[in-house]
Each structure stands twice: as structure tokens, then as C-alpha cells.
């Protein structure tokens, strides 16, 4: 009998988290997954013999520690190893290294500019103030500013108070930060091109905006607000790839009695008398439940698997207008050995971090110009990592695994679908970019898997290949995510909910949307809450 208390559509990290908390509360829960494997974009796959790797999301920091501990993910096999280092290699043969050690970092910055080195502590303090401000809201449901309900009014008041407590000057800084471009924000602290460019990358990753687009300073924050073992702003690798996160979540979910059903491609959410009643698969199978939770992005949720006649017109319009633009692609490369960039010893600690080649904001902005014109960047911004330097299990002994995140790649090429020739052209522009800085790189390539927005959408189901399931701009953040009036995880249909990264607090392997949605569902069902509250920062 296919009868459940709740059905979650999509076994990505948020779907599994949502399912785990519902199951923990004693509900009979099934998570349905279209692919034969779980994880969504939080996945490790063996696409070349001997190389198990994260082929979508590739680094971890945002995963909420409240969830990691509460669901005992380490007991279920999750281990996140933080990495340090990182560098931007410059056209003049030099590089800017990002050292973890404070004094070494100061000396490296001072090598490029003493003024910038002295500005760094101020920059770090101002930016961490912003992370402190946002972190308490990650594990909470956003209040609705248009509502007069006591809970919304109370939460809004509290929200306003946390801003007022900053004082006039810091509050104005905050408003500026939330609305500024990452370029303008960095200009206020630094003068050196390569230093600004190195930091600006976090403001554009996964976003269809340029470094001079207002709103990108917030995207920078989105990359700073996570932590690894309480070390705020740090990033790490999940051992065994990002799939380890999905595996641990699935084990936690199953330990509470949850059931995962793969190869289950949902065709439509069944609605009876204005109330969700279950789902029908493309093969005709039906699963019944009074609670249906969609972990698909808002566009797929409302435009693909919901019958339009079950939805109010304004929601259809809002879903159509939801901004979820593909802006990036990825190359996963199996390497025979370590490449040398600009003559830097490949055993240097910097190599274990994020490596880049865009040494000025202007180059990054021009890369965005290509996207606007409907083509991939000819001088792409790359966020390149060699995870096997930190986690040797990612490749056979002596070999290496390289993950190259590429910005920008448009969802469509000059208005038409991607072709295989386009994909080759895209791949070539990336390989050429890397080879410009590394004479031995090309010879080391054993296998290269190239993923344009077309592949990401087809395989993972992220519309347009947008990695955040919707742009992280203010019109789609907090109480506006996914749309104003629907930010509290409830859909307009009774019993139907949303738990994807398309809801607050947004994209990245955070699992907070899944947990927050579970809390709202359990409240509606008048069940005791199983979702932990947010930790306070010191």
C-alpha cells in the first residue's frame, strides 16, 4: 500500500533533511527520487574508473552545524576536512596567495600593497559583523512583512531590533553592504587589482551578475556565513565527496524509519478538494499522503508538477517571473599528476585551496559581458580546486582530481539550446585558460567531464543549471524567497510545502531550508517540533 503521512519529492540534501525531521517526529515518510541514485547536486559519482568525486557541488561550509549534530551525521559517516590556502595566478607570472596564517597572510598582502595589508583586518571585522547578523536567521522562518499575525509582527520587530542595535553608523554600513556591488565594496578597502579580484569571486559564484552589479556584496556574505567545526568562514571537503553528506543524511533519515524510493519520476502532485493528496509518477504509480513536500526548485514545483488549475493565478505569474538563471558550468578533470602554475611548487600549501586566474575586476566584469551576450566567457573566471591534495581517497595513489567551476556559462547559447559543439568550445576555453598558466597541464589530463547548464539541468533537475535554485538577490531573499507572501514554506495548496534551496535561506549545501520547512509542517500537523533551533554565535 503506497500510503504515507508525508511524501518528499527529490532526494537532494534538503529533501533528505526534511524527511529526516518529519520521520523523527514519528511520521511515515517516503522520499522520492527521479534518478537511480540520491543526493541531487550533493553527490559523488565514479564517472572515470578509480575517481570518485563530487561532480556538482564540491565544497562544504554552509551545512548547518545544528543539523550535523542533531542528526548525528558524523556517526553516519560524515567527515568534513577543512582546507586552507588558495591563490590567484596573475598574467605577469606572479600570484597572490591566500595563507591561513594571519601573519603570513599579512606579509603576502604587503608584498602586493602595504596599504591593503593594513586594511585587511578592518575588512575582516566589518564582513564578520555581517555574518553575525545573518547567521541567527538561517535556522528560522522569515516573517512576512505584509502580515498582521502576532508571530510575524513579533519576529519582524525582533528582526528590526537586531538591526537597530547596531547603531546608526553600522546600520548604514549594513544597508550599503546589502545593496552594493562586491566591486564597490572591495574598493572601499583595497587598491590592488589582484587582491580585489581574488576576493570578488565569492560575490559572483553561481550568480548571473557581474562584480559591478549591485547586490553582489551579499552573495559574498553568502559564501562567508558558513563554518567548518565552528570556524566561521572556513570551507572544507566532505571525505568521499559531497555524496558523503547525502549518504549520511539518508542514513539518519532511514534510522528514523524513512523510506527512499529511487527511479520515481513524479509527474504531478495530486490535489483533492484543494488539499494535497499524494503524487502520481510518470509510470502511473501513485503514492498517497496528506502532506507533499517539493524539494524541486520553485519553477519546477509550480510550473511542472502542479496542475495550473490548482494554483491561484498570481502564484503562476510569480513562478514564471522567478529568477533562476544558469550562469556557470563545471569541468571535472582526472589528472596524472600535479600541474605547475606560474612556477609555483605544486607541493606549496596554497595549492590545497581555491585557485583562480582572473587578476582584475575588469576581467571578471568582461567575463560577465559575454554571458549577457548569450555566450560562455572567453576569459572565464575559474574556481579551481584539487581536492585530492586534502583528501587522497578522491583519486588513485599518485593521481589527482581537479574540480573546475566555471563562470560564466549561459543557460542558452545566443537564445538557442546548447549543442555538443558549443560544449566543446566551452571546454576548450577553460582548458586554454588553465594552460595559459601551466605548461604541463594539458599533458596530465586523463579524463575530462564537462558540464554546461544543459547537463546540470538534465541530470540534477536544477532549472537552467542555476546552482542556488534561484538568484540570491534581494528580491528573492529572506521574506521574498521564493516569492513575497510564500516565504514560510507553505504553498497555496493546503498540505503542499516547499523545502528546496529556492526557499529561505537559499542555495548552497546548507540543509536549513529542509529543516525549516519540517518545523512549519510539524506545526501545521500539531506535532511536537523535532528541528533544533539555531546556535548563538559568541
Amino acid at each position, binding site marked *: 500500500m503506497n500510503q504515507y503521512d508525508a511524501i518528499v519529492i527529490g532526494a537532494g540534501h534538503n529533501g533528505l533533511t526534511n524527511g529526516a525531521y518529519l520521520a523523527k517526529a514519528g511520521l511515515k515518510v517516503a522520499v522520492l527520487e527521479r534518478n537511480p541514485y540520491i543526493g541531487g547536486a550533493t553527490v559523488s559519482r565514479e564517472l572515470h574508473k578509480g575517481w570518485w568525486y563530487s561532480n556538482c557541488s564540491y565544497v562544504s561550509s554552509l551545512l548547518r552545524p545544528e543539523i550535523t549534530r542533531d542528526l548525528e551525521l558524523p556517526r553516519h559517516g560524515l567527515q568534513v576536512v577543512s582546507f586552507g590556502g588558495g591563490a590567484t595566478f596573475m598574467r605577469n607570472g606572479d600570484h597572490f596567495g591566500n595563507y591561513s596564517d594571519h601573519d603570513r597572510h599579512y606579509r603576502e598582502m604587503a608584498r602586493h600593497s602595504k596599504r591593503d595589508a593594513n586594511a585587511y583586518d578592518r575588512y575582516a571585522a566589518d564582513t564578520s559583523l555581517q555574518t553575525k547578523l545573518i547567521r541567527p536567521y538561517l535556522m528560522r522562518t522569515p516573517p512576512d512583512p*505584509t502580515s498582521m499575525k502576532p508571530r510575524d509582527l513579533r519576529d519582524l520587530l525582533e528582526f528590526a531590533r537586531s538591526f537597530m542595535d547596531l*547603531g*546608526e553608523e553600522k546600520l548604514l554600513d549594513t544597508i550599503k553592504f546589502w545593496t552594493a556591488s562586491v566591486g564597490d565594496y572591495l574598493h572601499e578597502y583595497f587598491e590592488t587589482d589582484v587582491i580585489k579580484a581574488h576576493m570578488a569571486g565569492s560575490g559572483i559564484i553561481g550568480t548571473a551578475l557581474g562584480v*559591478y552589479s*549591485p547586490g553582489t556584496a551579499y552573495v559574498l556574505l553568502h559564501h562567508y556565513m558558513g563554518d567548518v567545526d565552528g570556524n566561521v568562514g572556513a570551507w572544507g571537503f566532505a571525505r568521499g565527496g559531497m555524496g558523503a553528506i547525502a549518504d549520511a543524511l539518508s542514513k539518519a533519515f532511514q534510522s528514523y524509519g524513512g523510506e527512499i524510493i529511487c527511479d520515481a519520476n513524479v509527474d504531478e502532485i495530486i490535489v483533492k478538494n484543494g488539499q494535497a493528496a499524494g503524487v502520481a509518477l510518470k509510470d502511473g504509480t501513485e503514492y498517497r499522503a496528506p502532506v507533499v513536500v517539493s524539494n524541486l526548485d520553485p519553477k519546477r514545483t509550480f510550473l511542472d508538477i502542479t496542475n495550473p488549475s490548482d494554483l491561484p493565478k498570481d502564484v503562476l505569474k510569480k513562478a514564471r517571473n522567478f529568477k533562476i538563471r544558469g550562469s556557470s558550468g563545471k569541468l571535472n578533470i582526472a589528472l596524472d599528476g600535479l600541474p605547475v602554475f606560474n612556477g609555483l611548487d605544486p607541493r606549496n600549501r596554497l595549492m590545497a585551496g581555491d585557485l583562480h586566474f582572473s587578476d582584475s575586476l575588469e576581467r571578471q566584469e568582461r567575463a560577465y559581458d559575454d554571458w549577457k551576450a548569450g555566450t560562455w566567457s572567453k576569459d572565464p573566471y575559474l574556481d579551481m580546486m584539487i581536492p585530492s591534495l586534502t583528501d587522497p581517497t578522491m583519486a588513485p595513489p599518485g593521481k589527482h582530481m581537479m574540480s573546475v567551476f566555471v563562470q560564466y556559462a549561459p543557460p542558452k547559447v545566443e537564445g538557442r539550446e546548447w549543442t555538443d559543439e558549443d560544449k566543446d568550445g566551452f571546454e576548450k576555453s577553460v582548458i586554454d585558460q588553465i594552460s595559459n598558466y601551466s605548461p604541463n597541464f594539458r599533458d596530465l589530463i586523463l579524463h575530462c567531464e564537462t558540464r554546461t547548464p544543459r547537463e546540470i539541468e538534465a541530470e540534477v533537475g536544477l532549472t537552467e543549471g542555476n546552482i542556488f535554485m534561484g538568484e540570491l*538577490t534581494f528580491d528573492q531573499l529572506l521574506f521574498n524567497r521564493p516569492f*513575497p507572501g510564500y516565504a514560510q514554506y507553505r504553498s497555496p495548496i493546503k498540505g503542499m510545502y516547499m523545502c528546496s534551496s529556492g526557499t529561505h535561506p537559499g542555495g548552497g549545501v546548507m540543509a536549513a531550508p529542509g529543516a525549516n520547512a519540517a518545523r512549519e509542517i510539524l506545526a501545521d500537523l500539531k506535532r511536537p517540533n523535532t528541528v533544533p533551533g539555531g546556535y548563538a554565535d559568541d
Partner: protein
Amino acid sequence: MTDYDAVIIGAGHNGLVCASYLAKAGKQVLVVDGRHEPGGCASTREFTPGFNVSDCAQWLSQFDQSIVKDLDLKGAGLRLGKAKATISLQPDNDHLILDGDHVTGAGIDAVDQAAYRDFRKMVRSFAKLMTTLYRSRPPKLVEQNWTDRLTLMKLGLRLKLLGRERLRDLMRIVMINIYDVMNEHFTHSALKSTLALEAVTGTNMGPRSPNTVYSYLHRATGEHLGQTGTTQVIGGMGALGKALALAAEKQGATLKLGAAVTAIVKTNDRVTGVTLASGESHIGKSGDFQC
């Protein structure tokens, strides 16, 4: 010389309006400007014999009508032309014409025409809201006094009065780009680009830059303040500068043109006057001197 309660540096339209209101309140006001003409960017120049041009600002679209009345600018000679329509020229001579809430030509269909009316209606309701802010000083958010609190309360009330759906619209579009908003409302390409042009004119942003909807609203708010839409000043923008200068003088302000300021004089950490290029200095009356 110790003659004035206030010296205003720059006889542009804001300087003159400020001077007029101070003078109207009984203050002794001096306006100084390095140029020989009042008006600053509101100026007309004969660029070749017999031909005049508004050589900086061109159109009047955002001038608050309440100031025109308060300072009797019509009495001071200000004459405005008719409200301006916008014409987007098309290669086949079937031009797109935007006049008030109506848009015609260039094969525009009834759907886009209706969408344009709705769009204008929405924009007007936001413009009305922004008028509250435009007519007050920007409120301090933490260190407020009662004036600030009153502004914030008025703003809050107006936000509520927008209604839930409009408020949700506003929350979403206020910080986004004009490119997306145009595509959400219209299908007609020339209509989209004509409106988007207003959002990017004078900014260093493109139609894809977030916040360009705000710059569009800024212009729309101006129209709301001006009530007449975008118009031409008869005699060029310089005529506005002249009318403002005349109005300021009528209120009792003194204008000193061709008088560039070289320094602001400070005594004991307090601004007390200005020094002009001619060497002359104006020192304020004791105590309440303001610049």
C-alpha cells in the same frame, strides 16, 4: 563684513531654493557663485548667434510644484511648455508614441497597451509613496528624533495603505533590474527599450544592473512631484535659473555672482564664514551662522 545669517555656496537650483526659504523665514542670506549666471546646471547659452541651448539640464520633470507655488515662480517669470510625449523612432516610420498612459504605433497590441496602463498605475502608486520621503529629510534610523519618527510613521502607514499585493510587488521589484521588469510586463521590444532608457539615463548602469527599477521610480516620483510630466522650460533651462534667482531676491536674499569661494572660514571648530577669490570675506553674525 558681518552681515549674514547664512551664506550659500552655489546658485544652482537647490542653492537658490534653499536661500529663498531661509530668506522667507526672515534670515539674512547671501548666495555666492563663481559663474556670472544663476542656475548652475539650469542654464541657457547662445551657442551660435541667434540659437540658444539648454547647455546642461534639458528637461524639467521633477521640480516640486509646491515650491513653484511657495516661491511664486510664475510671478518671477517661469513659463512651462506642454507635457512632453516620448517618441521611439522606427525605421519604417510607424513610430511608437508614449503619451501619458497611452501608447500607440509600431504595431503595439491591445495586450501591451493594457499592460502599459497597469504598469503606469503601479508605478504611480509607488511614486506617491516615495513622495513622502522626497518631501522630508532622510530620517535617521537609530538616532531618530520626532521629525524622523514622524517621517517613518508616515512611510509605514503609506506602505500599509498600498495594500498587500502592491506591497509584495514593491518588496520584490524595488531592488531589481529594469530588464527583468520590462520582460515581465511587456512583449513589445521598442516599448521595453524606451522605458528602460529612462531607468539607465544618467547612471553608470545598464538595463541588467539591479537597482535600475529604483532609478526608474526616481524619475516617476519626479513626475508625481511635478504633476505635469516632463516639460520644456520656455526660454531654456536658464529661464528657470533666472526665475529662481529673482524669487530668491524677492524674498530678500542677496546674490553675488562671479564670486568664487576659495575657503570656508572656521573659528573654534565652527564654521563662521567664507573667503571669496576677490579676497573679500563674509563672516556670519555671532553664533548661528550656517553654511
